[in-house]
C-alpha cells in the first residue's frame, strides 16, 4: 500500500495507522497521547492531519486513522494549524501552570484570554496513557472514574490500590508529568498508597518495591536475591577479578 505524506511516498500495510507510517518515515506529527506500541487513543487530538481521498478531503486524527491505498496526507495546512491552536488553547485553559503545555502554547503562539479561567488547574489532560501502561503491565490498578467535568484518572474509590505494584510506569509515560511519585526515607508514595522500599542486602540502598520484585519473580519463575543492580554488577566484576588474579 502506497500513500503520499507531505509529498513523500510511503509504504504501509493494511491495518496500520497514519501515525505509525509517518513515524517510520521520520515525518513529525505533533501529539501528546500517542506512544509507540500502544493502540492510538485519539484523545489529545493534536495529531490532526488533512487526508485527500480522490476528490474529497477530510480532517482526521493520525493516531487512529487506518491508512487506505493512494490517499494523500498533508500534515500542516493553515486550517490544521488553526485547529491545533484551538486545541492547545483548551489545554492551556485546563492546565495553565503546566510546563509542557506552556511550552507547547509558546511554540504555537497561543495565549489564554484572561477572562476564562478553570478553577481546577489540573495538570492531567485525561489522555489515558497511564491507564494504558498499567493495563499493559497487567496490574490494572488505575482507570478513568466519573464522567463529564468530574472525569479523572484514579484507583477504585480513590483508595490505595491492592493491585498497584508501585513501579511508576504511569508517571513515566505521562506527557504532562501530572502523576506524582514521591520517594522519601525508604517509602514510595503513589496513588495514595505508600510502599516500603526494599533495601539492598549488600549496600543498604533502597531500590525497588517488594511488589515489583514479586512481579519479576513470578514472570521469571525464579527467586531473586535482594541485591540492587549496582551491587549485582559489582558481584559479577568480582568474579572476573578472582579468575584473573589467580593467573598472575
Amino acid at each position, binding site marked *: 500500500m502506497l500513500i503520499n505524506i507531505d509529498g513523500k511516498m510511503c509504504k504501509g500495510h493494511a491495518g496500520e495507522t497514519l501515525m505509525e507510517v509517518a513515524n517510520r518515515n521520520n515525518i513529525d506529527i505533533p501529539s501528546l497521547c500517542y506512544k509507540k506500541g500502544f493502540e492510538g487513543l485519539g484523545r489529545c487530538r493534536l495529531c490532526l492531519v488533512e487526508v485527500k481521498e480522490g476528490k474529497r478531503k477530510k480532517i482526521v486524527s493520525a493516531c487512529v486513522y487506518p491508512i487506505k491505498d493512494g490517499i494523500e496526507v498533508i500534515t500542516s495546512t493553515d486550517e490544521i494549524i488553526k485547529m491545533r491552536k484551538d486545541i492547545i488553547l483548551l489545554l492551556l485553559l485546563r492546565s495553565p501552570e503546566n510546563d509542557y503545555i506552556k511550552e507547547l502554547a509558546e511554540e504555537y503562539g497561543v495565549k489564554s484570554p484572561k477572562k476564562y479561567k478553570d478553577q481546577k488547574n489540573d495538570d492531567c489532560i485525561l489522555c489515558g496513557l497511564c491507564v494504558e501502561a498499567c493495563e*499493559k503491565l497487567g496490574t490494572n490498578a488505575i482507570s478513568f472514574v466519573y464522567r463529564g467535568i468530574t472525569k479523572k484518572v484514579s484507583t477504585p474509590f480513590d483508595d490505595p490500590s491492592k493491585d498497584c505494584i508501585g513501579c511508576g510506569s504511569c508517571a513515566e509515560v505521562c506527557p504532562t508529568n501530572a502523576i506524582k511519585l514521591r520517594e522519601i526515607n525508604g517509602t514510595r508514595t503513589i496513588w495514595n498508597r505508600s510502599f516500603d522500599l526494599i533495601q539492598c542486602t549488600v549496600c543498604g540502598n533502597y531500590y525497588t518495591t517488594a511488589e515489583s520484585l514479586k512481579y519479576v519473580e513470578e514472570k521469571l519463575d525464579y527467586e531473586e536475591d535482594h541485591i540492587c*543492580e549496582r551491587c549485582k554488577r559489582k558481584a559479577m566484576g568480582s568474579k*572476573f577479578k578472582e579468575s584473573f588474579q589467580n593467573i598472575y
Partner: protein
Amino acid sequence: MAKGIVIYPDKCTGCRTCELTCSFTKNDIFNPKDSAIAVLPYDEVGLQVPMTCLQCEDPHCMTVCTVNAITKNEKTGVVTVDDEKCIGCKMCVSACPFGNMTYSSRLKKVLKCDLCKGIPQCVKECPTDALQFKDLDGPLHKRKNIGDLFSDVFGEVSK
C-alpha cells in the same frame, strides 16, 4: 555470525574512555553515569574490570518486558531496547542477573549496550584493546573463545 564484546581485564588501565565514549554516542553527554559500560576498579589486586551487557542467549530482561520493547535480533544476537516503546516500569533493571541494565530517570530511559548497531564505539576508542569485538559463533565457540581464562564466569552466562 554473531559478534560480541570480549573483555580482557588484564589489559584494562582504567582510563574510562569507554564510559565517556558510550555516554557521548548514546546520550550526547560526557557523563559516566549515563553510560552502558562501567569500569569496576579492584585496586587491591591492581585490576580494572569493564562490565557491560553480555547479550544473553535467553535474556531475562526480554522475558519480563510486557510491552515488547526489548527484542533479540536472531542474526546478530544483539538485545536492543526500543526507547519509544518502553514505559519505564524498570522490571528489566531488577531482572538482569548481572546488573548491566540501569535506568536513568533524568533521561527517562534504560541504559543498555546494543553494540552501537554493529560498530561498538567503546571498542574503537579503547587504547589498550581491553575491549575487543570478536566473532562468537554459537554458545560453544563463545565459551571456548573466552572461557579458557575464566570458565566459572561464563558457565553462569550460558545458564
